[in-house]
Structure formats: structure tokens, C-alpha cells
């Protein structure tokens, strides 16, 4: 039996285009996040503006992904893994768009901050940024490869994200409590910390969709990862 691509070339091509448009959204979200935080740390307004401008493209891509997804459902009536992939992808693209929106909020707030006084402690945000940026990057990879192990690792990082957010926010809120001269800027940074935490949560949402696409289990809003999913992940490792 021939197992591989679909007999209809157009089905294959449509799915490929659909997936790569979504992956483009993922890399764009990463880029926008990167530009917005570097803009903050390096006090570079241009980087912030780049992140803000690029979000328009991201919005258009989201519309395109939904249009493509609907066309695939209509034309090919996908079933089984194809159906789960289409549904998961439409949700994941929405998550990428939200992440990019958050990057824009960060960029706008950063622009405000760098207009004000220079803040020596700004680099304290870096560990949170690096954690969240890596998580988003891993979410893109997990989706691209439908990698259950990568997805499970992301889901298990939920605690870590909240802890890191708490720790770093505290550093900045202490500055505000001490009424230092740059307290306004630190207040704004607290917002940025919260938005970074949100991006981490979005990466985890994406991981949950990947689990659905790859294993058919819907693990949203549940506390534990079912053993069937862990088994499927182990199988993926063995097959690799």
C-alpha cells in the first residue's frame, strides 16, 4: 500500500502551503518579540518601530491561514490526522497572532520607557525574556514537526514561567516601592513582564494544540498529561 502524500497533488500542496503560512507567522512573532525587547534594552526606537509595523503583516497572515483552512475543509473533507492538523493549525495561528500583538504592546511601552530616564536595572528582564523567547521558538518547532516530546516539555514549563515572572516582577516593584527617581519607567516594565508571561502561556497553548494534532487527545484545562499521550511521545522517540 502506498503511504505518503495524498493521491491528489492539490491536497498535498494546499496542506503544505497552509502549514508554511502558519510557520511564517511563528517566526514573525519571534522576530517582533526579539525586536521589541532589544529595543528596550538597547534603547533603540527603530527596533520598537519595526516590531509595531510588522504586526500588520501578521494580521493579514492570520486571515490568510483561516481562509486556506476553510478551503481545505470544504474541498477535501479531511479526516483523522488531516482534520486535527487543520483545526489545530487554525488555533495555533491565532495564538501566534496574539503573541505578535503582545510584542507590539511591549514595543509601544518600550518606546515610552526609552523616552524617559535611563534605567540601570532594565537588564534584569533578560532571563524572563530568554525563557519565554525559547519557549515560543520551541512551540514553533513542536508544531513544525508535530513533536510530542517537545510539546510535553513546554507544557511542563508552566510553573517555571510563573515563578520567573514573579521573581523578576518583584525586582522591579521593589524599585517602585523605594520611590526611586525612575519609578515611572519601572511601573511600565512591570506591564512588559506581565506580557512576557502571557507569551509564555501562549507557547503552552500552542503545545496543547500540537498534542491534539499528534495524538488526538484534547488536554486543555486538565491537570495531568494522560498516559496515552506519554506513550505516544515515547513511540515518537523510538521511531526517530
Amino acid at each position: 500500500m502506498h503511504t505518503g502524500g495524498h493521491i491528489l497533488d492539490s491536497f498535498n500542496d494546499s496542506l503544505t502551503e497552509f502549514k508554511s503560512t502558519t510557520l511564517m507567522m511563528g517566526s514573525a512573532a519571534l522576530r517582533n518579540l526579539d525586536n521589541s525587547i532589544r529595543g528596550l534594552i538597547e534603547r533603540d526606537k527603530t527596533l520598537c518601530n519595526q516590531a509595531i509595523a510588522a504586526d500588520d503583516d501578521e494580521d493579514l497572515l492570520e486571515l490568510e491561514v483561516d481562509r486556506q483552512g476553510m478551503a481545505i475543509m470544504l474541498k477535501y473533507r479531511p479526516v483523522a490526522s488531516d482534520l486535527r492538523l487543520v483545526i489545530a493549525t487554525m488555533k495555533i495561528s491565532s495564538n501566534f497572532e496574539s503573541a505578535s500583538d503582545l510584542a507590539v504592546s511591549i514595543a509601544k511601552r518600550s518606546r515610552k520607557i526609552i523616552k524617559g530616564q535611563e534605567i540601570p536595572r532594565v537588564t534584569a528582564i533578560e532571563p524572563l525574556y530568554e525563557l519565554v523567547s525559547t519557549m515560543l521558538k520551541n512551540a514553533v518547532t513542536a508544531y513544525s514537526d508535530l513533536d510530542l516530546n517537545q510539546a510535553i516539555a513546554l507544557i511542563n514549563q508552566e510553573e517555571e514561567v510563573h515563578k520567573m515572572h514573579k521573581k523578576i516582577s518583584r525586582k522591579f516593584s521593589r524599585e517602585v516601592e523605594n520611590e526611586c527617581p525612575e519609578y515611572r519607567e519601572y511601573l511600565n516594565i512591570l506591564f512588559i513582564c506581565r506580557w512576557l508571561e502571557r507569551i509564555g502561556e501562549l507557547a503552552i497553548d500552542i503545545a496543547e494544540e500540537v498534542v491534539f494534532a499528534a495524538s488526538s487527545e484534547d488536554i486543555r484545562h486538565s491537570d495531568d498529561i494522560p498516559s496515552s499521550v506519554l506513550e505516544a511521545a515515547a513511540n515518537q522517540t523510538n521511531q526517530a
Partner: protein
Amino acid sequence: MVTPSTIDKLFNMDTLVKEPAAKATISDTPSTTPKTMDQHTQPSSAASTPSATETKPVIEIDNVSFSYDNGKTNTLRDISLDIAPKQVTAFIGPSGCGKSTLLRCLNRMNDLVETSMISHGEIRIMGQDIHAKDVSAIELRKQVGMVFQKYNPFPKSIYDNVAYGLRIQGIKNKSKLDEAVEKSLRGAALWDEVKDRLKTSALGLSGGQQQRLCIARTIAVQPKVILMDEPCSALDPIATAKVEQLIMDLRQDFTIVIVTHSMQQASRVSDRTAFFYLGELIEYDETNKIFTNPAEQRTEAYISGRFG
């Protein structure tokens, strides 16, 4: 690929006419625009695409009504639609709506029913009225081929099935026939499966293969138009997918009209779709529009399974 000289021989409008050119109602070559041609006559409120109006339609169905009983009742009523070249057009509609009847009008298969007649209107193919007195139905069917619901290869070898149409045209040269047979079988995505058993009986092939053989037989005579009447209904899903893939490849060289009961098939393979109901054309538009946002309520009701 087909050489220019073979195209000239087969597509020359004069071959449609039995009598010498002096008696023909239209003695123009295909490149001349007939004076009665409308660029577009579409009943639906939906606008047609601008590009379609720039190319001359291959098939013009001009306000046609058709009867099976000498005009007492009309099975088809006031049908007007144009089909552009090298497109796939799907006819859909509930059972008994007239879509297969209309398809069979296009190559005058309905002539086989003695009491059938075109009550009014005209069907023109490449500008020529196909019911004109001096048009040969036999010659018409060379230009307008047909693939049927139930595959019907001749009880001959695979080779002879494909070569049949060419042989009766007088082509005897073995190497020419070999070349044409291979080209047609490749065109029907069947060559690799049968190249080592061309002389064996066609009836030994599977259903899907037999249908693709019928398609090879049809394209061997280089028709301008291929009519397909539910070509996949007798086939399993894999064979269906192969035939659908084939249709999408064939559209580069042929104009295709396909009657289908499967909405998904229509949405997959066709560029434009015509929805018929009780002998009337309800809506005719781009396939994507018909299946995502049809203009007529009856169209929406049918395609979403609310009636029919």
C-alpha cells in the same frame, strides 16, 4: 505533444460539415468569430469573471429548451450558459434535474431517442450550431468525446481500444498508431500499469483502470471537449482520487464538462459549477463562490443537504 498539422486536420471546422463547403451554413475557419455570438449570457445574478469574457467560449448554450416527447413537455427549459476553453465545468443538481440530459445534448447522444428534440434555442460548439442540417453527428462526437458512468471498454485488447478511433479515421501506419496509443495511455495515467500487456484484453483490468482506459480511448482522437457523466460513481475512493487527479491534469489540454453527484468532487476539480433544478439552470458561477456563498437560496439548500 500534438503537432500543429494534426491539430489542423482534426480541428478544421469543415470536417464537421458533411456536404462540401459551398452548402455549409458556416464556412468560416474556427478562428473567425461568428456574428451571432454573445460574449456572455448568464441567468444568475452573480457577475461573471472578466477573464472569461475575453476568451471566446467553446460551448454556447443559447436559451435552449429540450423535450423527450416531441415537444409536449420540456425536460430542459431556457438554459443559457457559456463554457470557456480549457476549464472544468461541473453540472450538479438532484436526480431528474436535467443535468445528464443537457450533457448528452452537447454531443447529440439524445439523437438516439427518436422523439427527442430541441424545442427552441441553439447549442453552438466553437461557433457552429451543432444541430444544423449539414452537421454530421459522427464528426461532432469526434470533437466532443464522452466518458460514461459505467466504464465500457470494447471487448478487445488494451491497444486496440485506444487505437480504434484512430484506425477508423484511416490511420494505418503502425509506428504512428504505437506513438498515439502510448501518448494517450500516458495522458490517462495508465501507461506504466499496462505497457507490458497492451495486447491483453481490456476486460482484465480493474474498474479504475478500465475507466482510465476509456479516458485514454477518448483523448486518442484529440477531441476539443470531453464530457464526463459521473465518471467516478462506479469506482472505489483510491480509483476516484486517481481519476480526479487525471481530470486536473487533462484540463491543460481539453475543455471538460462533468456531471457529478458529489459536491466535494465538484468543489475539488471544477473551475465553474452550474446548479440545475427541475430542468432549469438556477445558478452558474465560480465553484468557490457556489460552495462558500451561493447567491440563490435553492443552491444553498441543495449543497448543504437540506433537500434533493
